[in-house]
């Protein structure tokens, strides 16, 4: 199976073919550039390639994972100084300095990434700015190691004892740059990349799909730091002399500017942005005095006028560039049978659960058991605490008191991603799709937990990694077909209607192959035909041995699909039993319709 599972070149559409031709021409142009352009300009292009290694890394963290880093120049500086110090003071060759610089920068990336587990947005921006300033100050002050403001001279890169010429250095940069792009592209196209983008679009939903936020955010930070370190080391050897003012805060802004102009969150974006912003100023030397002012203006204009960058604008014009082809065999049975041995037991058990928000007791001493392989519904007036209950089951909230056990294992204290991987899938009352991912990718994120290959296997695309990918792809298509969304596979989830987004959420949750599926008001906003369709879907899910816990306001719908109904009112259980029993219960009628006096009014 080829990339994107397109069988051959013949299956590419016109837009995609054009794109490949342009990419081919670009690679050829870079390969033969030294033959035609003069040495001064070649140096500029080399610098652009070095920057591109860094901006591609920055794109992983800022573009794909959505964590803005304004401290990239600090990591770049750490890489440069690690390489320079090892080369100048210990006389080590470039080929040892490079991995060392990547490792040291990666380590700092881990430290810098740690706060993202708690904060994001402008807090993270300030943390990363602060980090950059600290690095700059240390580079100036620690004179015995860094040479302070006077800087440090770096020997040339040598290969078998002979120093590289300008042209050879260019090819070295080009090689490393292409390698970086290839590695990054493979990571992004794998389940790692989907996890990054899922975190950017919706952290809550991502963690409920089994994505460990801590691990993936740190991974993204380390990847971007390693690439910044590589770029820094390369830069130290490129310029033969480095000093702290080469790694200032304004460079961090410049790096971010390149990916914003090109298009954050796309592979091609940083390429376009970096090449443009490094090379064009060489033709506009008369504007040098105004260069920073222009950068500032460009920053404002692009975030307002072209928020998705140049690549985003092209994509809007040519939507068919993203076009998933269905696999040859779209299975008729997308829901894998749940071969759970809890055929008759209780799959979920809640005992004396209490949850308070400040002074408000949302759930009050609530107990309930869900029988395996049934549809268990929860109804109750607005504000009764129904969604809170789902959030307690899947670990979004931690209850103040009580026990929740799933297949006889205690769930209390676990994070949503662990609970998701244990076999609990969910949808949300207010829809939480990954808006900037395609419909197909949304469903594939649901299959996250089934991928076992590590990052190295994903980079080199081993047979096992490709098989896993193929399985996920096929399953996602089948689920979309089952939901009737297969014609929307290549569209962005944000473009779907509210009803379709609800169905997409169910498909995404089914891709998790859950043992227990929590559906939070799946019929809200659906019309009658769609509700009938949904009823059929839920029945099919149950037939495949998956237990369904359903919150819903459409009473007819609930009565039709449920085996058991629990009624919740003011955080406590009002009634429970078969649908017909609950319907006849006087307390339930009172809670829903009020007392007789109230009815008279």
């Amino acid at each position, binding site marked *: 199976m080829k990339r994107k599972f397109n069988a051959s070149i013949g299956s590419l559409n016109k837009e995609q073919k054009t794109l490949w031709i342009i990419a081919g021409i670009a690679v050829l142009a870079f390969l033969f550039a030294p033959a035609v352009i003069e040495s001064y300009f070649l140096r500029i292009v080399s610098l652009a390639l070095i920057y591109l290694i860094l901006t591609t890394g920055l794109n992983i963290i800022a573009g794909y994972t959505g964590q803005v880093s304004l401290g990239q120049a600090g990591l770049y500086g750490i890489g440069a100084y690690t390489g320079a110090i090892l080369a100048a003071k210990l006389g080590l060759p470039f080929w040892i300095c490079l991995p060392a610089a990547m490792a040291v920068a990666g380590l700092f990336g881990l430290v810098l990434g*740690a706060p993202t587990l708690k904060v994001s*947005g402008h807090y993270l921006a300030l943390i990363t700015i602060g980090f950059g*300033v*600290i690095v700059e*100050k240390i580079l100036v002050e620690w004179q015995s190691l860094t040479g302070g403001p006077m800087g440090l001279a770096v020997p040339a890169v040598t290969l078998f004892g002979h120093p590289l010429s300008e042209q050879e250095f260019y090819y070295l940069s080009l090689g490393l740059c292409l390698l970086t792009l290839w590695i990054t592209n493979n990571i992004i196209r794998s389940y790692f990349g989907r996890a990054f983008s899922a975190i950017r679009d919706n952290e809550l939903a991502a963690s409920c799909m089994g994505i460990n936020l801590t691990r993936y955010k740190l991974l993204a930070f380390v990847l971007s730091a390693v690439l910044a370190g590589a770029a820094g080391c390369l830069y130290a050897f490129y310029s033969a002399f480095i000093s702290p003012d080469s790694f200032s805060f304004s460079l961090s802004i410049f790096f971010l500017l390149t990916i914003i102009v090109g298009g954050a969150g796309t592979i091609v974006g940083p390429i376009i942005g970096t090449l443009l912003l490094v090379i064009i100023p060489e033709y506009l030397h008369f504007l040098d005095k105004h260069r920073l*002012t222009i950068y*500032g203006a460009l920053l*404002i204009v692009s975030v*307002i006028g072209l*928020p998705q960058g140049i690549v985003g604008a092209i994509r809007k014009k040519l939507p068919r560039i993203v076009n998933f082809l269905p696999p040859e065999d779209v299975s008729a049975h997308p829901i894998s049978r749940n071969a759970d041995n809890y055929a008759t037991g209780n799959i979920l058990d809640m005992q004396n659960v209490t949850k308070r928000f400040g002074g408000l007791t949302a759930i009050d001493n609530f107990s309930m058991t869900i029988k395996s392989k049934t549809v268990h519904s929860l109804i109750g007036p607005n504000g009764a605490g129904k969604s809170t209950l789902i959030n307690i089951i899947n670990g979004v909230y931690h209850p103040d008191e009580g026990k929740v056990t799933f297949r006889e294992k205690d769930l209390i204290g676990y994070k949503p991603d662990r609970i998701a991987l244990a076999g609990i899938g969910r949808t949300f009352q207010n829809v939480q799709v990954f808006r900037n991912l395609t419909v197909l990718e949304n469903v594939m994120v649901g299959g996250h937990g089934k991928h076992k290959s590590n990052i190295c296997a994903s980079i080199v695309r081993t047979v096992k990694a490709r098989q896993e990918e193929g399985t996920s792809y096929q399953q996602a298509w089948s689920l979309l077909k089952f939901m009737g969304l297969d014609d929307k596979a290549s569209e962005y989830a944000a473009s779907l209607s509210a009803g379709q987004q609800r169905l997409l959420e169910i498909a995404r949750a089914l891709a998790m192959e859950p043992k227990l599926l929590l559906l939070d008001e799946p019929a809200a906003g659906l019309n009658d035909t769609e509700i009938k369709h949904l009823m059929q879907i839920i029945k099919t899910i149950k037939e495949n041995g998956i237990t369904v816990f359903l919150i819903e306001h459409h009473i007819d719908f609930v009565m039709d699909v449920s085996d058991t109904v629990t009624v919740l009112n003011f955080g406590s259980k009002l009634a429970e039993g078969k649908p017909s029993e609950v319907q006849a219960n006087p307390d339930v009628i009172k809670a829903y319709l009020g007392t007789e006096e109230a009815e008279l009014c």
Partner: protein
Amino acid sequence: MPELLISGLVMGSIYALLALAINIIYSTTGIINFAHGELVMLGGMFGLVLVVNTGLPLAVGIVVAGGIIAVLAVVLYYSTIKPFGDNLGGSLGWLMATLGAGIIFRNVAMLIWGSHPRPFPPLGGTELINIFGVNILPHEIWVLVITFLIAIFFNVVLDKTILGSAIKATASNRNTTRLMGISAEKMVLACFGMSGAVAAVAGFLISPITFAGPEMTVSIGLKGFGAAIIGGLGSSRGAFVGGLILGILEALSMTVITPGYKDAIVFLVMILTITIKPEGIFNVAYEKKV
């Protein structure tokens, strides 16, 4: 030691002054104006033009510069924040845009006035006053007093008046605020105007200490953000105390460790505060409803 404490308090007051203005914008929009340091710098530069070059009295200079920077802050709002609509929490476009505006301000100032820092007359002359055996400049007393008054003013406005409630309501939900008959736009503009005026005052107070130049607030501006965060965004009391803590910390690190590392230490404390207690010293964290 007392001199050290005084200089720490004076620098701390200046950080507090920045933090208070950053805070008032946060209170109504939920965002941080990353160009605030540059507004302060422009306050100082306009002060230079009005007071040193034109010869206006200092008090008149402050008022005029305050007006100019207030207008500039409003322009800043319209050009870099308003285009992102009401839901500013959703994207970080405003962050990039205000950073961009800061870069423009600094570089345009450099084109007009050059990068060379110039002396600026302090408030109350240059004669030292002896208070309890400590020699202190009148300007330093002015810095402490003015900052304290502005902090009290913001505290009263935000926490004790109906205007303060309207400002906080705007931050919480603009549409609902509009439905209550409050012009959310006016609240935001009022806050940007106030923060601009305070930025100009800060410029007048900082310039005699650092000298007036386009790069005078590069690190002071960042420390203003730090002060606001350490104290807790949204709280005037927090901004004031956060500034003082930062100033004293900086003064201490200058004597205990070496002066060169003072910025590194201040930013390290800021990073640790954000990581450990992002809501700041004076705020309480609430569990977010999903």
